[in-house]
């Protein structure tokens, strides 16, 4: 992992164009495909330092300070010096200087993305761009059409979208006032900006922002003044992208609505969508995920001639995958415990279908390996089976170390492994209590401790899902030990959620209810010593669960949904929802139900 964040090792050169000198930095092997990173407002190329160092291991990475920013010189006069036409001249000059023979892979953030949209949609750059990854910056032309479409036929929903984005664009109106923005940036705002970024956007201070910030921000105001009104008022009718586009949408962006990209399919023939639960400054807060997605996209689009055709078989087999899951989980590392059967296996498969890399963990080595094999067949780029008993602290610690070193830091952790135990409190032996708590509670604690620690150490978000149960809020005389363990898991999840919220790590507790899995076939029955009797009870329970026949696939879907929408507590089956509702509305009813003795 790239620990050094600076661009100290970068080679520097100056590119002259239209009376401006642009400061260009290069990293990595020049024979590799060129990735050109364009920064936004108010930034300089240093915003990319984290991403650039990661990408430089595989690509020829080029960054430049946009005119008027960083160490590049500013046009004189400033007014009219920042039009998209002139920015396109700059881009072509840089691209010709650093990669004269091959098209470049363009990556833009914020205003870097806005101008890159111009590069990717005007005819004169055709053949110079191999791919374009856009984040947090729409095409002004597309934006103009987006507004027009909503103004001409204002349905309530469209008006809502207009007002929503209108409110998020407050700073654009401010920047159109004369002189004041410059004064603010060169004065108090420039001084407070790093602190503001840290507080509002969770961008940790360090070598960013650079000391040039006040002048970057003052000059950059002309980006807005020179282009926004002109383009939004008269958007180009032919702004079609001539390169494949990957759109990365941070879902917590305070300045841009996700709805802006709803019509993008009409402008971009080859569009890949990604979503990232993060705020606006993703190059600073999520460099690992960004560089992984950029690298994957660059590899896929590097040589148009040898570009692999998209696999047809896969799409036919997984016609049912929700696009939102594929956009969010593609390429992420997901670890599922208890993945050899039931909910765990279905969850591993659901993530695999969405394109995630999957680590399937279970006591049952064969089952875990089988899950990994099948996961690979249905869309996981990589999948591994690991054999561990989650109750074993040392084994879990070793697993965490192995996963971190061989596969990477886990993005989504699903603590799902659990065992069933039924029987009255006094029939349950101390040994049985211990085993249930060891697996159901300690297994979750170990998972959260070791893998959660890695997530927090990385500091780039993540998500933890713990499988609790409807028994966590539905008391029952038949399941004291199991319910206790699951109630603990539920509360653990809630506490952890509070603790990790600041770090962008979500925690969800899933409460499935009665689901048709083999938990019944392996469940223990306290007080039953006769093996035949135990088998009979297991079969009976399995038959009842089979009659209920709620498929684990639906629970898996609820888990993916919980991660996508960062839900805290998710009861899944109707009976679980009912119990959850009653537990808040009239707990007395649940207590009465708890006294019911199920027939043996």
């Amino acid at each position: 992992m790239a620990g050094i964040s600076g661009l100290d090792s970068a080679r520097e050169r100056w590119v002259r164009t239209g009376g401006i000198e642009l400061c260009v930095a290069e990293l990595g092997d020049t024979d590799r495909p060129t990735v050109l990173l364009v920064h936004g407002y108010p930034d300089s190329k240093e915003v990319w330092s984290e991403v650039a160092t990661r990408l430089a291991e595989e690509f020829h990475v080029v960054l430049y300070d946009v005119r008027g920013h960083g160490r590049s010189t500013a046009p004189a006069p400033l007014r009219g010096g920042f039009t998209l036409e002139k920015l396109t001249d700059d881009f072509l000059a840089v691209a010709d200087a650093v990669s004269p023979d091959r098209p470049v892979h363009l990556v833009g953030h914020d205003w870097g993305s806005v101008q890159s949209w111009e590069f990717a949609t005007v005819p004169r750059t055709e053949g110079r761009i191999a791919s374009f990854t856009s984040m947090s910056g729409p095409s002004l032309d597309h934006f103009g059409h987006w507004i027009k479409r909503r103004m001409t036929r204002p349905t309530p929903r469209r008006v809502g979208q207009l007002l929503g984005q209108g409110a998020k664009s407050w700073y654009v109106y401010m920047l159109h006032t004369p002189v004041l923005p410059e004064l603010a940036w060169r004065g108090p705002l420039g001084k407070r900006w790093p602190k503001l970024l840290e507080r509002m956007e969770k961008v940790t201070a360090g070598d960013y922002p650079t000391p040039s910030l006040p002048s970057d921000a003052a000059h950059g105001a002309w980006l807005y003044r020179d282009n926004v009104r002109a383009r939004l008022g008269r958007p180009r009718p032919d702004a079609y992208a001539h390169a494949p586009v990957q759109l990365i949408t941070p879902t917590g962006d305070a300045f841009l609505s996700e709805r802006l990209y709803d019509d993008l399919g009409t402008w971009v023939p080859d569009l890949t969508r990604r979503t990232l639960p993060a705020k606006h400054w993703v190059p600073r807060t999520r460099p690992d995920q960004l560089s992984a997605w950029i690298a994957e996209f660059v590899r896929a689009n590097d040589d148009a001639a040898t570009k692999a055709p998209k696999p047809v078989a896969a799409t036919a087999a997984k016609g049912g995958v929700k696009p939102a899951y594929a956009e969010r989980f593609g390429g992420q590392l997901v670890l599922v415990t208890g993945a050899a059967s039931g909910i765990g296996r279905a969850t591993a498969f659901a993530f695999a279908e969405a394109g995630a890399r999957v680590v399937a963990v279970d006591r049952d080595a064969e089952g875990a390996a089988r899950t990994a094999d099948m996961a690979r067949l249905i869309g996981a780029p990589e999948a591994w089976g690991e054999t561990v008993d989650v109750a074993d602290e040392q084994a879990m610690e070793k697993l965490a170390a192995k996963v971190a070193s061989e596969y990477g830091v886990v993005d989504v952790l699903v603590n799902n492994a659990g065992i069933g135990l039924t029987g009255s409190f006094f029939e349950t032996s101390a040994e049985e209590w211990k085993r249930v708590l060891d697996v159901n509670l300690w297994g979750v604690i170990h998972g959260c401790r070791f893998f959660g620690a890695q997530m927090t150490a990385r500091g780039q978000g993540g998500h933890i899902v713990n499988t609790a149960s409807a028994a966590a809020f539905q008391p029952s005389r038949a399941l004291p030990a199991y319910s206790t363990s699951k109630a603990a898991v539920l509360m653990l999840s809630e506490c952890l959620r509070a603790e990790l919220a600041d770090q962008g790590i979500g925690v969800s507790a899933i409460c499935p209810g009665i689901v048709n899995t083999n938990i019944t076939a392996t469940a223990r029955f306290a007080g039953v010593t006769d093996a035949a009797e135990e088998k009979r009870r297991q079969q009976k329970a399995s038959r009842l669960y089979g009659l209920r026949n709620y498929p684990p696939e639906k629970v898996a879907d609820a888990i993916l949904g919980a991660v996508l929408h960062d839900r805290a507590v998710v009861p899944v089956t109707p009976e679980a929802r009912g119990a959850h509702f009653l537990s808040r509305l009239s707990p007395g009813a649940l207590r009465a139900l708890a006294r019911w003795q199920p027939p043996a």
Partner: protein
Amino acid sequence: MASAVTGELSAELRGFREVQRLSYECAEAVAAQLKPGVTEREAARMQREWLYERGVRDWFHRPFAWFGDRTAFVDFKIPLQFFPTNRRLEAGMPFILDMAPVHKGYAADIGYSGCLGLNPLHDKLLADLEAHRELILREVRERRTLREIYEDVDRLMVRQGYANRHRAYPFGVIAHKIDRVKERRWAPTLFGFGTQSLKGLASDAVHGHRDGWSPLWSPYKFSDHPPKPGLWAVEPHLGFRGTGAKFEEILVVTDSRDPEQSAFWLDDDLPHVRRWNEGAV
């Protein structure tokens, strides 16, 4: 391969084997003609016409064809959904052809799984069916009850990570008895099933009900009996997230005391078996 067709088959079994081979030939011939854009209805008609040209006039059931996620019976709620639709075949799509013709008084019931182009997942499903063919034969020879065998197949499927899709068939059967059918000049069908064959099945059901057995091999109590001698069309059907695969062929159960002779697959020279054997070499 686990089977034991040793010695000469009786004339009757030869008759059944011939029509089963004819059916598989039909399946292979039709599968070879499938191309993108063909609908399920067209595929079913192709099977019907191919067999009609070769003298088939009556059916145990008329040919079915399932494409894409319909091979796994995704969202099947009512039996009418089994009938061929206008779903079109696309590259990479799995398909299943299922037909049960009656020829010269002998009936067969076969299922043929294929795929248009490469689909590694479908290959995996097909390969994993082999274990089921072995399991079923072994447990029938052990004279386990049909219900137990059904549950063991179910467990194996769960262990493999698949869903049991034969549960979607009428009565959830994994197999049903199949018998000779009287040849009549007029052979009407009822909901796709030949009336003559339905009559045979119904009479078996009535007799079986008195004696405690059933011609339907299901997960229910009425299948809680050891295998009944006769011919069983066995059809384990795997489903995995929108991809399904099955085979269907005749298992001969006799009252012989020799385990090898007490049960055997009617024919080991079938496309899916050849495929496994080639894979093993």
